[in-house]
């Protein structure tokens, strides 16, 4: 909250850069001092592994053959970027991200509306909507896997699908992966959108009603424009999450039938093959893609991260 108070006058300070008072200077110094411990800890826990990963990615190095380590420069990156498998996994990841985020946004918005408008049993309603998000991803992945399993699953008997093997076909397997991801994380998006809905001033919708706007017009002309910031933040968070999807793929298909995502590819190289150099190169590429997505959202769509906290 205190951060909000300090950032609020920022636009004014920018216009009047010439006259920075001693008080402002002292406050800034105090601010830096107070945030220093957190920044240092951040650098230690995120900076070190990051630089170590970049460093390791420059070597041809096996965990099981430590003596054969040799410097290959950007060779690992060239291998990864020129490999069809890499691009195929990028495509799979992109597809999963696109579909899950789009579907979740629509369902999440509907759920947020329900939570926002509910008159009775509000707590029960919100709890039950948020329930899937409280389940550990690995457990939810197993639950979905067994539901669609040929021998223990109930999905095939219910829908009369006979012995259709869901995980033996790329698109069917991706369908289940995406479905479980949507089921699991829609509540998260609904929660962020609920916060956005709460920010839309009642007066505006009431005024629109008085002016004779239909419910549809109110939604598109009043509510959505007023919660654009919340929507963009929700989409950004979910996009980054979906882009790094790992658990569902690991549990359901182990990357077979071309369902591997970028995270899974990294795991496969680093942990399974113990090809530390190549694996870290893929990991760094994954990291860069995350940075690019975040940059596009924040710069391109002008997402203001501070707004999601209701600081406005």
């Amino acid at each position, binding site marked *: 909250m205190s951060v909000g108070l300090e950032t609020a006058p920022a636009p004014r300070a920018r216009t009047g850069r010439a006259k920075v008072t001693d008080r402002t200077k002292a406050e800034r110094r105090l601010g830096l001092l107070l945030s220093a411990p957190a920044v240092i800890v951040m650098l230690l826990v995120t900076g070190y592994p990051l630089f170590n990963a970049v460093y390791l990615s420059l070597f041809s190095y096996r965990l099981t*053959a430590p003596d054969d380590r040799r410097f290959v420069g950007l060779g*690992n990156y060239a291998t990864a970027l020129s490999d069809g498998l890499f691009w195929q996994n990028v495509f799979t990841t992109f597809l999963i991200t696109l579909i899950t985020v789009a579907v979740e946004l629509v369902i999440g918005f509907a759920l947020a509306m329900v939570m926002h408008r509910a008159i009775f049993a509000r707590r029960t309603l919100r709890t039950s909507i948020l329930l899937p998000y409280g389940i550990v991803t690995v457990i939810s992945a197993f639950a979905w896997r067994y539901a669609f399993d040929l021998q223990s699953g109930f999905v095939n008997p219910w829908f009369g699908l006979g012995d259709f093997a869901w*995980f*033996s076909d790329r698109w069917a397997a991706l369908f289940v992966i995406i479905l479980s991801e949507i089921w699991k994380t829609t509540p998260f998006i609904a929660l962020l959108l609920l916060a956005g809905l709460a920010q839309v001033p009642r007066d505006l919708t009431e005024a629109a009603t008085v002016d004779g706007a239909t419910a549809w017009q109110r939604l598109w002309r009043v509510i959505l424009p007023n919660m654009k910031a919340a929507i963009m933040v929700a989409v950004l968070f979910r996009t980054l999450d979906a882009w790094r999807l790992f658990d569902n793929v690991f549990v359901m298909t182990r990357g*077979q039938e071309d369902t591997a995502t970028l995270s899974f590819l990294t795991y496969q190289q680093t942990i*399974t093959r113990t090809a530390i150099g190549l694996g870290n190169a893929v990991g760094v590429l994954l990291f860069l893609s995350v940075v690019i997505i975040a940059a596009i959202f924040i710069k391109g769509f002008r997402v203001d991260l501070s707004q999601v906290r209701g600081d406005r």
Partner: protein
Amino acid sequence: MVEGARKGGRRGPAWRAARATAALALLASGLAACGGSGGVPTLTWYTNPDSGGQAKLAAKCTQAAGGRYRIQTSVLPNDATQQREQLVRRLAAKDSGLDIMSLDPVFVAEAANAGFLRPFGEQEKGQFVQDVFQPAVENSTWEGRLYAAPFWANTQLLWYRKSAVRKAGVDPDAPDFTWDKMIDAAVRSGVTVGAQGNKYEGYMVWVNALVASAGGRIISSAEKGDDATIEIDSPAGREAARVIGKLARSRAASPSLSTDIEEQARSLFNAPNGGFMVNWGYIWRAENGDAKDGVIDKSIPADIGWARYPRVRADQPSKPPFGGIELGIGAFSKHPDLAVDAVKCITSTENMKFYMIDSGNPAARRAVYDDPEINKEFPMAKLIRESIDAAAPRPITPYYGDVSGAIQSRWHPPASVNPETTPRRSADFVRQVLRDQALL
């Protein structure tokens, strides 16, 4: 969350003291667990999951040690690939708490080459290899030294439903019984042929057994690392590809063949149209247990027959798969000598027999199979011995994970396997992967 933190901050000193005490107590109990009991060195044995047989052996050998050491077990993940991942991670970090480990034979070479295992000396070696199956010794040896002690050995048999075989009018025991005859008979009489076609180590077991049965090898000169000779693009490799493709595209295949592991193959076998299945020896115990518990029909065990792994070429005896567990000693163990003693105890003929009866996993020493009790419990014991004697190990190479992963990648799903293209493509791919020129 912010709310909670504030409340916490306002709580009195009594609360803080209570928290500190709780934290200390937790810490102390954690430390005590590490310390071991009363000065007796504790050896930790990382076991692959079984029905508790290895834990029983640990207790037996602890007792036999008379207070010199204590063995505690720690269970590894379910499948072989993940067991290896955990062991490699621990060993690469020089984990001194890893004294004895149950290793899949295919990973001994990798661990030995990386310096993760303590080799056995010439004097120690004797007991570990005496009367032990040749493939087990081969798999435990790297560059002339024995790095692991064979504990149990495994192989696959051809299991069949006697009723189905009668209906199909074939004899799986006939010397020229081939995969082709089996698949044709199954298609003709509307029964299934179960195998392991998931993209995992079990699929590599199948591919390797077929290539070896056709008289070939996947790679050779493995000690040359990434210069090893890749031989899968050969007549034998093409034969293997033909058999897999033929089964996978036939009506006899499991609908989920491309994700089937051992247990799925077993339930396919138990279905009303179950016919044939290649699978490990454990299923005999599992089937009898399930029939007793009412999970499957009580009449099924009496309907189960067994024969040697089917041939690929009618004029060439089959080479069944080889598996099992070898016991390695961690190179960073604090008590290597005691660990050697413990491994001697665990792999004694008597304990191998005990383990075979307890867990259903076949012993690594040939003499055990002459035991009357074993033959009563496992009517197919002699066939298991014959099969392991004839078995072909999977490639022995420190890069086994890469070779196996590359083969799985190009040969999966089974229905896509084509004798004209798959062996050639997989040969190129294995080479690239070995040289870090391709992702896997």
